[in-house]
């Protein structure tokens, strides 16, 4: 099936990338990049305003570089400060989660088994945030819960129950905390909510 071929292709590409760079190194590079950006930006601040950003960004960059290049450090220093005693466990867990994803292909708990659960939820969450901004939280919230519940193959009564619960939670926030759940870029307000 085309979708399975696509999934296998994607899997092979991910394996190839993992051969070049580890997940930990990606995180460290992000930290270095963000810190360097903020360090560069601090040059426009007053003396008092730049001390803390400079101090913290420099330590972050140096520390991250030490972690990336840890295999070149003196052994004593590496063992004591830089080495992660659970690095092997993390690698094992990575392999296990890959095995788990393969198991998902064969024993799907979700509707679209080629997408791992964590990626699916993160995607849904980003979609929820974007939809809330565009078409109001009041509409996006039950949509998110509905899609999530259908994705994870919940029974119909649970899908209905959870969706209704999410609507009640949204209304509860509106009532108790008075923040606009009915405002979005494409929708100014929802008239029926004004009645409630």
């Amino acid at each position, binding site marked *: 099936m085309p979708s399975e071929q696509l999934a296998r292709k994607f899997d092979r590409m991910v394996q190839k990338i993992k051969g070049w760079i580890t997940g930990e190194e990606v*995180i460290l590079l992000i930290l270095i990049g963000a*810190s360097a950006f903020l360090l560069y930006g601090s040059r426009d601040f007053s003396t008092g305003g730049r001390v803390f950003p400079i101090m913290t960004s420099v330590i972050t960059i140096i*520390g991250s570089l030490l972690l990336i290049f840890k295999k070149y450090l003196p052994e*004593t220093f590496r063992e004591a400060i830089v080495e992660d005693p659970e690095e092997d466990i993390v690698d094992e867990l990575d392999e296990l989660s890959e095995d788990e994803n393969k198991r998902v292909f064969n024993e799907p*708990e979700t509707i679209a088994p080629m997408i791992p659960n964590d990626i699916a939820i993160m995607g849904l969450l*980003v979609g929820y945030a974007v939809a*809330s901004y565009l078409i109001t939280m009041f509409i996006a919230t039950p949509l998110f819960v509905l899609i999530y519940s259908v994705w994870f193959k919940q029974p119909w009564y649970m899908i209905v129950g959870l969706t209704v619960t999410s609507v009640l939670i949204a209304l509860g*926030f509106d009532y*108790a905390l008075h*923040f606009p759940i009915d405002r979005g870029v494409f929708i100014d307000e929802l008239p029926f909510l004004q009645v409630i």
Partner: protein
Amino acid sequence: MSFSAFLEGTSLLFGWPLFGWMLFGVVVGIFFGALPGVGSNLGIAISIPLTIPLEPLSAIIFLIGIYSGAAYGGSVASILINVPGSAANAATTIDGYPMSKQGKAIDALSIGAVASVLGGSIAVITLIVIAPVITLIVLAFGSAEYFLIAILGIAMIAIVTRQGSLMKGIVTGMFGFLLTTIGFAPLSGDYRYVFGRLELSDGISFIAVLLGLFAVAEMVKLSTEMGGIAEDDEGFTGSRKDGLLHVLRNPVRTIKSSYIGMGIGAVPGAGAATSNFVSYVEELRSSDDDPDSYGQGNPNGVLASEAANNGTVAGSLVPTLAFGIPGSGSTALLLGALLLHGLRPGPMMFSDNIHLTYAMFVGLLIGNVVIILLGLTLITSFGDWFTRIDTNRIIPIILVLCVLGTYSLRNNWLDVITVVGIGIFGYYWLRYNFPIIPFVLGVVLGPIAEENLFRSMQISGWDPTYFLTRPLSVLLIILTLLILFGPVIKTYWERETQT
């Protein structure tokens, strides 16, 4: 002890609605604690935005109630299905689950309830008595010391949590500090990293960061644990009376475990995740029982673990309230809540506001009454219900609460971006063994650390040697250097002695 302050705090607590919030908090905490993989961190995190309309003390008492209730509630899943509600109850599984398999689930749950209550109460009473001593220590701290103790706290947490390497802890802690520099800096008057956007002028919300890390990241992680918590019926039998009497017949064990928990809780970064194991190991070491009986359903194993983790609840409040250094994720969240509600940790909490501190301690005592009532009645009757909840049904609701709760903080879409972004980033941090507690500490304490650094620099005329002129500052610097370089010296020494 300032008796009048103690009485004032107690009378505040017994007023309405404070009393009601305490009780409700404990019940909510037991619920969250009993759900496997959820725990007090998540319960506190998603409750924080909901406490915004409350009075500061009501909010804090409610959240402390959750913390205390969850420390006990985690024993339910530990005992019934061998899955700890949180790391604070991990040691309870060792003997709790075998007891359950032997048909003594109710005994174990009763022991957990009574030990939690007694362990927690002993620690709280001790703290109330020694509060004046703590006050003296706290009042000796000035701006320089508060800046240095924030740095020391991150170093300690990085090494004590033992998650990832020490350097990873320092990097994440410093990055947390760095993120707090975004926005308007009140001391220097700079608008930092706002790029002309109004949303950024108030900076990153630390509550959004906490929710992202403790709620969103955890829910994404939980979703990868296939399916919900399905449970085979192990049988829910045993005797409440036997469980209760067992704890009452072992007062020395209970007191010892409570103090182990309290002492470890007072160490920044240690927390109940450490104390329950230390107490269990100490019980194993010092007990007259056959050592082989531990791990096979020895009730003293459950007693030691549960008395310690509730003792930690009280102990961990000391560094949190006195110095703003949390002992665990839960106290990091409590610290965030304190700041959100305008209560600043430090000298004020042990001087002008000491009545509030006493109210929190007495609140823990009252909460323990609720724990024992619920623990010996409802939990021992219906506790197995928690183990049948499918986590895939909880996750979407919790994520909804996170997003709505975050947006409700400031009606700022940046906060929604923060909670989702940090949640996703935090998930990968957890996956690649980056410690998140130092990062949390950095985010929560960043503004306070910078403020104290700025003040110290102003007082000294921007002379960094100012820190070396104060004995307490020098001590803190030495401690920080020892923590940072002690492992290097130790490793070098071990190598030298081996060769």
